[in-house]
Each structure stands twice: as C-alpha cells, then as structure tokens.
C-alpha cells in the first residue's frame, strides 16, 4: 500500500500542474473556461489529499469551517459585474487573513525555538499579509463607496507611513535576532494592520486599478512566504503565480497611467490642478441633439465606441449594445476601444461589455484601436474623459502629460456623451471638447443612447 505522505505529495504535484495549465488556458477566451475547470480539479485534489494527512486528529472543525467558507463564498461569487472590483479587493483581504492567521499560529507553536531564516520569512509573511488585509478592506470600502473615494492627505503623511513600516521591519529584525521577545510579535502585526489603512487613505478612486493589482501581488507573495515557512512547494508555486500576476497587472496599470508605483502609493493624485480650468472657460463647444447624432452615425462606415467608467455608472452598457446592434444591421463597422484603466480594475470594462452580450472580438485594446482611429468616421465617447484627453500628447504642463490615450481626436467626427462641461475625475480640463470636429451630446448616457437608438430604428423602417 502507498503511504499517505506519497498520496498527499502526488495530489499536490498534480495540483501544481493543473494550476499552471489553468493560467495557460486563460490566454484566450476560447479555452479560458477549461482553465477554471483545471483550477477547480487541482484545488479539490489538493484539499482531499491534505485530509489524508495522518497528523490530523480532529475533522469536526475542519468540516464546519469548509462548509461555512462555502456558504460565505457562494454570494461572493454571485455579485453583480459592476461590483467585481470590490469583491476582488475583499477576496484579497480574505486570502491575506488566512495567510496571516496561519503565520501567527506557526509563530506561537514554534517560538522561541525558531531559526533566524524561518523567523525572517515568517515576519515577511505576516507583515505583507497584515497590510494586505486592512489595505484591501479599505480599497473595497472606497470602491463600494462606503468610504470617501477622495484621497485624504495631510502634512508629513509619507513620513508617518514610511516611519510605521520602518518600525514594523525593525521589530521583525529584533525578533529574528531574539525570538524569545514574543511579546513584540502582536505589536509588529498590529503596526502592519494600521499601515494597511494609512497606505490606502491618500489614494483616490481613479488609482484603484493599480492598487488592487498591487495588493493582489502582496497577497500572492505572502502566500509564497507561507509556503517557505510550511515547506510546502504547492503553496510556493500558487503564491508566486499569484504574485507574478499581480505584479504584471500593476506594471500594466502604472504604464497605462504613465506613473510609477511609488507615485501611485505616495502621489495622492487628483487634487493638483484647478488653476488651469479658469483660463479656458470662454471657449466654445458645439453640441448636438440625439437626432443629429443618429444621422451622423447612420451615415458612417466605421464607428468606434470609447466606453469609460461613467458608462457603467449610468448602467448604459445594455443600451450601448442596442446601438451596436442597430448600427451593425445597417452595415456599419462598430468597434470598441478599451483603455487599460477604463473601469475600476484591470479588464473590468471588457467584462461589463461582455455581460451586455457584445462579442469580444469587437473589443480592441488601446494600441489596436489607435491604429484604427485615423480611418474612423465617428468616435463616440461614452463616460470616458481623461483617457481621451489630447493634452496627454501635446501639453507638457498637463498633469497627465505622457499618459497613453485613445487618440479619438484623430477620427473624422468625435461625439462625446457627457452630463455637463464639469471636468472629470482627476479635475483636468479636456481640450478634446473644444475641437472643431467634436460634438458634445449633453445628457445622461443611458437616456441619450436610448434616444439615438430610437431615432435609428424609427427612421430606418425595419432597421
């Protein structure tokens, strides 16, 4: 008979292979659902394998906890698609909570007989875990709008934050050298928890895609550190995959906003420039009615729709899908241009449009869209602002100068659906609105798109 340890190790080995395949299959929408399947099987194998561990003396609480976790997990898996960013932030908090609790239990089981290396890794695990718990809860609160989205800053903030982190690290170093100073351990974890809160306070809603990705990376790294502590290769692999994914997404997001990590974490974006706004007030804008917009759209061959987070806020994606249908039936080529930071987390806009049944091969990323825009008849901007701001290309004094944007101003006609002329999230004036080829469509996104659709179906007979 095969000993239990071999069974466990074999299930872990298979789980690792399935996890890597799971991410590999996610590379294309055609195979992506196999990826979920592979991940589920790997997870189930690993959990069942672990239950064979002969050191386990009591199954009752394991069973209760597994059932309770599943009960909490089901509603968390069934939130609305607009709520996915806060759900994701919450799950980072849960993941980090698990890692931090296990690390804490291991500390009290082993200390003071704990090797220096082990103590270093364990400290890394619980500091990263601790700041991820509270940081993610803060991020979830801001995304859910329970907490103010506005960045909150005060003098000496960075100094206070870095000082706190430095104290936590200093305690960690002290514990590595003197593991019997066990009373310091809760202080270290406590500081990490407070640091997580302080770290997110100065970060505004528009920076959430970067922050969520960064917290994802931390959650992964702390899990990998836990793998070192428990000497579990399975955990090291899963943690480093998660860490790598979070890191890649953070880099993507930072690049898409032309900012560095440090700038996101210490920059407190969003309240810099109100001085610019006064100088441009006198400029003229041209506006159009739904009828005029419908006429222009029906005369076009190629239309690019540029959705932003405002479209999701107005719940306009289903109306946009109707517009897509009407135009496509009339033989108009309609594509969607998705900026990497459209939405509140990486890829969020794609999910919202897919939910509205818009085929994914019509969703273009920024580079592909920018290749198309100069040959496009109409660019229709719905609820997006800063990601279309040509000042990012042309005006070195603009706070978003250098940020990659969707070059909608290169389309023959630009139409922007917007509630009013008030500046966008970051408070930056958008010169796009004053261009000669720009028409402003003032109104609520959902209603305006609906009026355009009605014009098009009414005028087009069987349409």
């Amino acid at each position, binding site marked *: 008979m095969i000993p239990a340890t071999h069974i466990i190790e074999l299930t872990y080995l298979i789980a690792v292979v399935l996890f*890597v395949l799971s*991410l*590999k299959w*996610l*590379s294309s*929408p*055609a195979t*992506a659902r196999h990826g*979920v399947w592979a*991940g589920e099987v*790997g*997870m189930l194998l690993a*959990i069942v394998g*672990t239950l064979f561990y002969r050191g*386990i003396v*009591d199954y009752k*609480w394991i069973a209760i*906890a597994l059932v309770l*976790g*599943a009960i*909490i*997990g089901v509603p*968390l*898996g069934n*939130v609305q*698609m607009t709520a*996915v960013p806060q*759900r*994701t932030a919450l*799950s*980072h908090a849960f*993941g980090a*909570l*698990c890692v931090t*609790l*296990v690390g804490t*239990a*291991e500390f009290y*089981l082993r200390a003071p007989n704990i090797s220096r290396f*082990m103590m270093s890794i364990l400290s890394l695990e619980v500091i990263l875990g601790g700041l991820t718990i509270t940081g993610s809860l803060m991020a979830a609160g801001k995304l859910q709008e329970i907490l103010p989205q506005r960045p909150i800053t005060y003098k000496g903030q960075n100094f206070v934050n870095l000082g706190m982190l430095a104290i936590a690290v200093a305690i960690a170093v002290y514990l590595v050298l003197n593991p019997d100073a066990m009373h310091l351990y809760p202080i270290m974890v406590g500081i990490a928890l407070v640091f997580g809160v302080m770290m997110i306070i100065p970060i505004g809603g528009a920076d959430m895609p970067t922050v969520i*990705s960064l917290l994802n990376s931390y959650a*992964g790294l702390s899990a990998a550190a*836990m793998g*070192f502590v*428990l000497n579990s290769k399975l*955990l*090291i692999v899963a*943690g480093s*995959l*998660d*860490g790598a994914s*979070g890191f*890649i997404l953070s880099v993507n997001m930072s690049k898409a906003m032309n900012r560095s990590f440090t700038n996101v974490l210490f920059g407190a974006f969003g309240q810099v420039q109100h001085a610019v706004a006064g100088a441009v007030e006198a400029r003229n804008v041209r506006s159009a009615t739904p009828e005029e917009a419908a006429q222009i759209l029906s005369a076009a061959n190629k239309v690019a729709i540029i959705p932003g987070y405002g479209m999701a806020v107005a719940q306009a994606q289903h109306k946009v899908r109707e517009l897509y249908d009407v135009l496509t039936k009339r033989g108009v080529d309609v594509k969607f241009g998705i900026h990497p930071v459209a939405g509140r*987390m990486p*890829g*969020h806009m*794609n*999910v919202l449009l897919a939910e509205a049944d818009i*085929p994914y*091969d019509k969703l273009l990323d920024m580079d592909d869209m920018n290749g198309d825009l100069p040959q496009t008849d109409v660019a229709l901007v719905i609820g997006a602002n800063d990601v279309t701001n040509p000042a990012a290309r042309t005006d070195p004094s603009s706070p978003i100068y250098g940020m990659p944007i969707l070059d909608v101003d290169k389309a023959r006609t630009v139409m922007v659906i917007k509630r009013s002329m008030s500046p966008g999230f970051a408070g930056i004036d958008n010169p796009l609105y004053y261009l000669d080829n720009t028409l402003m469509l003032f109104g609520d996104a959902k209603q305006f798109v609906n009026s355009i659709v009605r014009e098009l179906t009414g005028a087009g007979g069987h349409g």
Partner: protein
Amino acid sequence: MVTVDLYNSLYVFILAAFIGFEVIRKVSPLLHTPLMSLTNALDAIAVVGAIILAGEHKSTLAAVLGTIAIVAATSNIVGGFIITDRMLKMFKSSRTQKP
C-alpha cells in the same frame, strides 16, 4: 537539513515565478479581470496549511486560528471559481453568435 529545504524552496519559488511571468504575460488584456479572480482562487490553496493547523490541534490558539483561516480561504475558493466562470461564460465571439 534546514538549508537543503531552503534551497529547494528557493528553486521552486524562482522557477514558478518565471513560469508565472511567461504564462501570464500571454493572457489577453480582455481577460485581466477573470485572471485576477482566478489567481485569487488558486492562491487560496493556503487552505491546506490551515486544514493541517486546525486538524493537528497542537494548541487551542493554533486550532482556532486555523479554523478561521479555513473559512476565509474556502470562501475565496468557492467565490473565486464561481465568479471567474460566470465572467468567462459571458465572453462570446461574433462568429459563434446568432444574429
């Protein structure tokens, strides 16, 4: 013994990180949200450490912390897989879609 384990772990970590970077770089930006929810679910494999803690019952503290940790991780596993699958189900190509 400890150093052997350490080097084994470091090899695994570094190789896994390389695989992670290579595989995840190829994930289409279309699917970055499902990517994050999926890696989050996979990361909850930390549940195996929590199960051992809760099951071994070496101390009351360890058992209690382990039990809470199982709840947290399991909710991530269940919720993460459900929402990832729900999202991926919605992605349809225009070629396979009926007009």
